């Protein structure tokens, strides 16, 4: 039986933990609203860019662009993984990291990693993967420029032959309580499917337009993935912290009961001692 003082200390500590989890829950909830708004604002741009990309690819079946042609020999791969900087967001990081690792095993080859967020870096460093770069401080509130930097880096590595394939691991935001880790290939580019507008003219040529469009398209896909992942991260943190707050409450109820029993026990014992003392006289 723990001492009354001990129980009291525990109640106090759990109470302050509950304050923290509750605050984190509220902060995550408000940030989630912002992330969701950003996600929907980006939707128009994302969809349009994808559509233009798809229609060029469909129109120019004979167009052979180096960024769209798979290399004969694939030796090195690059995986860009989007995680969070901090924990306390449920299974968010574990899910996407595990999915990425499973994918690495099935495809084989040597993998280099670019990590967005500290958690991805830690995960892959522990598993002896080469982490080329880590981007921190952007996973909760990504900007388009961040996406441009990451996409640019991946494109450079692909162009100079350091890697032969680039994959992206992120978490898709389905709803506030539902997320799905996803892997997609960025390079060589797989053009999205669509119906093409017949007779579209590309000025000066399909190749020239693709030259300018592909980097933009990669940035757009990256930005979309960053926004989706940010929303998932915040959603996971919100639900995780909500559960933690609930659990802390339950624990406190239990401890309070214990505390009261112990207190009552102590009083009863004291009375018994006094009574027996009086009887002995």
């Amino acid at each position, binding site marked *: 039986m723990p001492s009354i003082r001990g129980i009291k200390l525990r109640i106090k500590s759990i109470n302050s933990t509950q304050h923290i989890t509750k605050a984190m829950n509220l902060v995550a909830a408000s940030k989630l609203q912002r992330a969701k708004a950003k996600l929907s*604002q980006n939707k128009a741009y994302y969809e349009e860019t994808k559509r233009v990309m798809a229609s060029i690819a469909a129109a120019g079946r004979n167009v052979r662009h180096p960024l769209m042609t798979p290399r004969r020999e694939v030796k090195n791969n690059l995986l860009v993984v989007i995680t969070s900087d901090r924990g306390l967001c449920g299974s968010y990081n574990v899910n996407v990291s595990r999915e990425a690792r499973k994918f690495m095993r099935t495809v084989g080859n040597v993998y280099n990693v670019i990590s967005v967020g500290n958690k991805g870096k830690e995960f892959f460093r522990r598993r002896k993967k080469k982490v080329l770069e880590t981007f921190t401080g952007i996973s909760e509130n990504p900007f388009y420029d961040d996406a441009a930097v990451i996409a640019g880096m991946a494109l450079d590595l692909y162009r100079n032959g350091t890697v032969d394939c680039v994959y992206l691991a992120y978490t898709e935001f389905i709803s506030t309580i539902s997320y799905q880790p996803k892997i997609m290939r960025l390079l060589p580019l797989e053009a999205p499917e669509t119906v093409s507008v017949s007779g579209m003219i590309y000025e000066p040529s399909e190749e020239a337009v693709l030259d300018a469009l592909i980097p933009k398209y990669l940035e757009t896909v990256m930005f979309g993935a960053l926004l989706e992942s940010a929303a998932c991260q915040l959603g996971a943190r919100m639900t995780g912290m909500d559960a933690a707050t609930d659990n802390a409450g339950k624990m406190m109820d239990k401890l309070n009961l214990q505390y009261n029993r112990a207190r009552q026990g102590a009083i009863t014992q004291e009375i018994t001692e006094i009574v027996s003392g009086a009887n002995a006289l």
Partner: protein
Amino acid sequence: MGTFRLRLVSPMRLMYDGDVDMVIMRAKEGDIAFMSGHIPLTTALGYGIMKIIKGEETREASVFGGFVEANGKSVTVLSDMLEWPDEIDIKRAERARERAERAMQEAKDQVEYRRAELAFRRATVRIEVSTYPIIKGRLTESS
């Protein structure tokens, strides 16, 4: 001449969506104007001023890179750098122009010079766009 639907889309927002008479912009290969019934065309954009003409009204915006797609019915401009005149910080643009000018003179190689030149052109376009009148209620819904 009829009107056509013009949409300006950037990653953070839908900047414009409405029916206009004509839009002129700077493509990679030179200036290009779209009017109703333009043939389907896709091209990359350069750095320059975009002029949107609707009846008596003309409004300007700065555009740096991106794409335009005309599909016969509507024209869509996709760019991650689109700004209206009132969104431009003129003092900052002037400082950027001075800085770019210095950088162009002091550039040691081709890459540095090219970078400074692009910054210079951005600043120049911004300064010019900022002199145009600010038009409120710009996100007019298409009828």
